[in-house]
């Protein structure tokens, strides 16, 4: 098996410095079934557990390596950081300000979302993803703003949009400002839709609450990763609320497929090919060929130059 990830992989699998092979004797424990796997095998299977099939969370660089052409991703607005709209600092509890600092220190990330231009099998796209390792992937001002910008960039450059979601929902510390990111992102997705530019939503473990219930549910094609917890409330909250024990299938990708909410459940090893195939189909339609309602062709856009920044608040 070829080594899959180009770069070193930080996180629970035991990172190795860039370019160095992972030692043969390192082990990784599956977060779901606790099975031990050789680190090298774990990496080469894209962090899919051979025993239970769990698709463990991927870091941004891992996800990018899985999905995008090597070296094609150029992140935009990497330095964007959250404000503190509520001045959230209840007495005796950690303030939002401190929490943000803590998550940044722990994860090495500045926020829970990245976006930028990238290519899939040569096709220019806008790519965005949410990352559970920062603030449980929760959506606040920065996630909302980046998703909205990703939609608008995709719309303006007529590049298909791919968003890989993973989130616990809206970020409580931003209160109704976080809630309203649902409206902001959903409106941005529809703005993209009116331009008839395709949007593929990939739901990874877990995608819940305000993120599912806004941009993540609204893909022209909705893909879920096997076993991913996907839904609104999520099994844990439902069990808490109802006191009932749920079947293990509840709110999984497969459950949502059966109930008609997602178009397909795709194995990680097939994801790039499936997405590329979908893009080729969507892009070769009359709406795209004739560039309705915008006039510039899809494939004639500038490649990797930054766009002029939209007007923002904050």
């Amino acid at each position, binding site marked *: 098996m070829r080594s899959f990830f180009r770069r070193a992989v930080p996180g629970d699998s035991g990172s190795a410095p860039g370019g160095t092979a992972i030692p043969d004797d390192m082990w990784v424990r599956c977060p779901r079934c606790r099975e031990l796997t050789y680190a090298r095998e774990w990496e080469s299977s894209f962090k899919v557990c051979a025993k239970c099939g769990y698709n463990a969370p991927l870091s941004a660089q891992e996800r990018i390596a899985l999905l995008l052409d090597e070296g094609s991703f150029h992140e935009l607005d990497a330095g964007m950081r959250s404000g503190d709209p509520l001045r959230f600092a209840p007495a005796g509890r950690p303030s939002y300000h401190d929490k943000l600092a803590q998550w940044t220190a722990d994860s090495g990330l500045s926020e829970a979302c990245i976006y930028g231009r990238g290519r899939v099998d040569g096709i220019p796209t806008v790519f965005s993803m949410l990352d559970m390792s920062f603030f449980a992937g929760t959506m606040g*001002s920065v996630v909302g*703003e980046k998703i909205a910008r990703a939609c608008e960039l995709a719309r303006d450059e007529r590049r298909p949009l791919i968003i890989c979601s993973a989130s616990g929902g809206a970020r409580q510390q931003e209160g109704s400002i976080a809630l309203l990111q649902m409206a902001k992102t959903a409106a941005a997705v529809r703005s993209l839709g009116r331009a008839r530019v395709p949007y593929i939503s990939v739901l990874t473990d877990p995608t819940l609450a305000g993120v599912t219930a806004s941009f993540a549910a609204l893909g022209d094609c909705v893909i879920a990763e096997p076993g991913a917890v996907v839904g609104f409330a999520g099994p844990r909250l439902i069990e*808490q609320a109802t006191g009932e024990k749920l079947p293990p299938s509840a709110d999984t990708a497969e459950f949502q497929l059966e109930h008609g909410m997602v178009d397909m459940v795709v194995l990680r090893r097939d994801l790039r090919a499936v997405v590329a195939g979908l893009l080729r189909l969507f892009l070769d339609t009359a709406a795209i060929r004739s560039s309705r309602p915008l006039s510039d062709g899809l494939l004639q856009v500038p490649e990797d130059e930054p766009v002029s920044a939209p007007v923002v608040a904050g």
Partner: protein
Amino acid sequence: MSVVLDFERPIAELQKRLEALEKQIAAHPKPELEAERGVVVADLERTRRDVYRDLSPWQKVQVARHALRPQTLDYAKAIFTEFTEFHGDRAYADDGAIVGGPARLNGRVVMLVGHQRGKGTKDSVSRNFGQPHPEGYRKALRLFRQAEKFGMPLVTLLDTPAASAGLADEERGQAWALAENIAAMAELQVPILTVIIGQGGSGGALALGVADRLLMLEHAIFSVAPPEAAANILWKDSKLAPEAAAALRLTAQDLVDLEVIDRIIPEPPGGAHADQAGAAEALREALVEELGSLEATPMDRLLSQRYAKYRRIGTFYE
């Protein structure tokens, strides 16, 4: 039926004294009693005003949840004429947690849609205490589309603790229903006027609340999650709800500061539950005024303003 909140006790005691006095006066009218009544009435009014001027966020939560606080169907009756309720999502069920249909406001035909918590045990249970299932949102969406077809401005009244969160809701696509409504409202080709009349809780409120103008009754709340749920998420202890209520800035006054809402509609002293007619009149005036200004704006401009309104919400540095 009478429900007295903790912090309303001084008001309730004065009311009791006033009632007793009036009984005495009715039996044996005396000038001293009349004078005392005057004092008590003034005291009551002042106490009401004082208590309700300085409600804590947690007290507002309790007021917003008050059993006697008017609901969508109360306002439908008090403010609108010819309200004609339409039922069902045309696919699965009729969800009583959301009600709606065409009605007249000040003579103009609008589509009215709102949450209904229910009154009394049986009605409340049948309406799931105002927590809609997916079919409720889909009924609302059907009515939104009908409003669009006939050019009826949309008026929505928000009064829900949160979206329902059971396994059945997952099976029928709660998240998908919410997302569809939120997205549809963002591009709906009629003016949208939303008022948070009670609890505006989470995505369940937002699914009826993407609007050109977002108004709020003085003691209503608007929140990313019910305070108990937020406390649980934040501090793993739902008993810290009062602290969460304060930290979440869910009051109308906070939300004006945050530029989330456009206008506060004052409630009568003692809250809408103490004077339903007064609350209805205040709401009516605000609705009529706002609707007039929305109807005067061309639809194209409304739509781009609506997009911009939500597009700019957020605080970040770059």
